[in-house]
């Protein structure tokens, strides 16, 4: 199987997208699933959300972060990944909820936002609000890559107010909860805001599904690296999640565990940059 890149574009200074051929993933993808990439044979298994599926291709939004995401950024259309594996994970129930809101503030969340809104919108009784927040106007994704086309109401927010509503999605959410009429919240993206969101929605008794991103190794339920604690019970983000009832998640341990390999990741990036610079 050749997992060829068929499109690669910048989303902003930090994020880019790729379309990659992955027929098996494309055939069975349900929003709430993710996939795993292996760029090169000696590479890591990297989990990625899927923004959309078209024929035998999937679209991924990727943040330039560490070694793998930067290495892939140097590749071009026509290059092929070693493996694209999936779909993985157990999606939350996709059904009629009523007034649904999806919130996101980071690449992975934006991809899920798009996929999930589109799917939930297939139920006529759902009214879908999509909220996407970015730090500043310069970070906002280009037209065509936002969720405005897949929802009933779209709210763009920037933290400095340079475009759209001023504030983070949390500020938008607070107002919507005050106003009432929210039946179900979904959210993905940065982990610390998800904790705040969970506390906030609990106050208003509104249910919330959150993507609990954890470090994954096999992503098939065999290592326990991605363990999260839901109501005190251990679950595996890769096969039971990654979306869980935010009110039940042990957020402090999830936030802490996500940082376990920081020092090693810096080392890997250092080595990669060193090689890029011809070993100088």
């Amino acid at each position: 199987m050749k997992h060829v890149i068929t499109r690669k574009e910048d989303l902003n200074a930090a994020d880019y997208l790729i379309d990659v051929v992955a027929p098996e993933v494309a055939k069975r993808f349900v929003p709430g699933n993710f996939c795993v990439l292996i760029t090169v044979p000696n590479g890591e298994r990297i989990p990625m959300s899927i923004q959309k599926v078209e024929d035998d291709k999937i679209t991924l939004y990727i943040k330039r972060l560490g070694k793998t995401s930067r290495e892939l950024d140097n590749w071009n259309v026509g290059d092929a990944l070693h493996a694209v594996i999936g779909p993985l994970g157990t999606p939350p129930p996709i059904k009629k909820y009523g007034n649904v809101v999806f919130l996101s503030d980071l690449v992975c969340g934006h991809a899920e936002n798009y996929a999930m809104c589109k799917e939930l919108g297939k139920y006529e009784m759902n009214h879908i609000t999509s909220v996407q927040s970015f730090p500043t106007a310069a970070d906002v994704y280009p037209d065509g890559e936002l969720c405005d086309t897949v929802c009933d109401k779209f709210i763009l927010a920037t933290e400095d107010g340079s475009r759209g509503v001023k504030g983070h999605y949390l500020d938008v959410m607070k107002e919507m909860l005050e106003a009432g009429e929210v039946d179900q919240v979904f959210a993905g993206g940065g982990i610390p805001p998800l904790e705040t969101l969970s506390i906030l929605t609990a106050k208003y008794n509104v249910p919330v599904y959150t993507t609990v991103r954890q470090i994954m190794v096999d992503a098939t339920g065999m290592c326990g690296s991605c363990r999260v604690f839901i109501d005190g019970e251990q679950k595996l983000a890769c096969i039971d999640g990654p979306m869980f009832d935010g009110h039940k998640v042990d957020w402090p341990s999830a936030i802490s565990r996500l940082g376990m390999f920081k020092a090693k990741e810096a080392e890997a990036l250092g080595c990669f940059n060193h090689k890029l610079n011809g070993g100088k």
Partner: protein
Amino acid sequence: MAMKKRVPMREQAPEERIKNFDSVPLGYSKEEAIEEAARCIQCKNPTCESGCPVRMKIKEIIDKIAHEDFKGAFLLSKQDNAVPAMTGRVCPQEEQCEGVCVLGKKGDPINIGKLFAFVADWARESNIVDQPEIKENGKKVAIVGAGPAGITCAVDLRKMGYQVTMFEALHLAGGVLQYGIPAFRLPRDVVDYELAFLEEIGVDIQVNRIVGQNVGFDELREEYDAVYLATGAGAPKFMKIPGEKLKGVYSANEFLIRVNLMKAYQFPDWDTPIICGDKVGVIGCGNVALDAARAAKRLGSKEVYILYRRTKATAPARNEEIHHAVEEGIIFQEMTCPSKMVGDKDGWLTHINLIKTRFQGLDRSGRPKPVNIDDSEFEMELDTLIVALGTTPNRLFLNNAPELDTFDWGGIKTGDNFETNLPGVFAGGDALNGGSTVIAAMGNGRDAAVAIDEYIK
């Protein structure tokens, strides 16, 4: 006449080998193998063979080795065992073939495992390949999981003429042989070579194919004449004591998958990292615990402790493993039971609390039962803790196959012929038994192949 002693196995010296992941045993030379094989008294009733779950023709193979017919020995061993170089290295021979060798009554049993590994290695180096004649029968079988059970079933069915497709969830085939057992016990060139045999005889191995996830179980049942489930027992067990959320705490499976499958010991040339501190504790004393402890030593840990609530004499690990671990300076903290893991404000493990135990009566399996001693709790500083308490059946597949009958603990239920409650669907290996051994899983795979053949005919 005094009985001859076993021809000793040359090994890397402990102080050297803890710096690398190369094989500990260096293997017999031709002369050594012949000498060891010549010790076999060729029993009229070779009890050794009754100890081998796949009934290898041990007596005859050893006779061929003794007469320098290595090729003959190799081809004969391949008749019953697709992967003799691997089993020769990892079987718990002391409980199986060697455990019932008559020479063991008075002296050293024949070193059957190492002799078979020698023969298979020799064949590889001499480019001797087993080329079974295959008469296609036009029928198709799907195998789920490419561990020892799946491999054996695949090879046997292929030899009977079936078209066999093997689906493996990970990016490399082999199951535990690939992701669990470290290279210093089972070198990866041996694994690769013996797996290549499957493709040579025409087994179609599809990696990254997760049945229930990107391959439909129902599709397999429709498309193939039979399905064999060999998904293993790879889900880690934790202790459910406080502190398992801490950074620095791994399941043995995570630790070993990072090291073996993902080659974290070659980080950063390989991308997957591992963090292994100076002071490492491993809870448990089975093969898995010792593999993790010895891997930690090789990753540069200064002190590695096995924390075990019994004694190493009553531990389930193979003798050879315990012996090697002791030589390598692994410290056995026997008769202690962890009670909680404690961390600092950043969420990193700092120490573990342990309670001393003593034996009192017997447990359900008939072994002495450890009980906690009151007021004996003490602290032990640790940077890294590896929980090696065994595994349970993989859930990923089972979650997607609710129609399949299973036990509460996750094991797949089958009848005597390994058929599940779903017609044409058979199961075996650790998915059925919980954790057992490579060769027991292979024995299962072999019996299932016969049952599947009967079912399809």
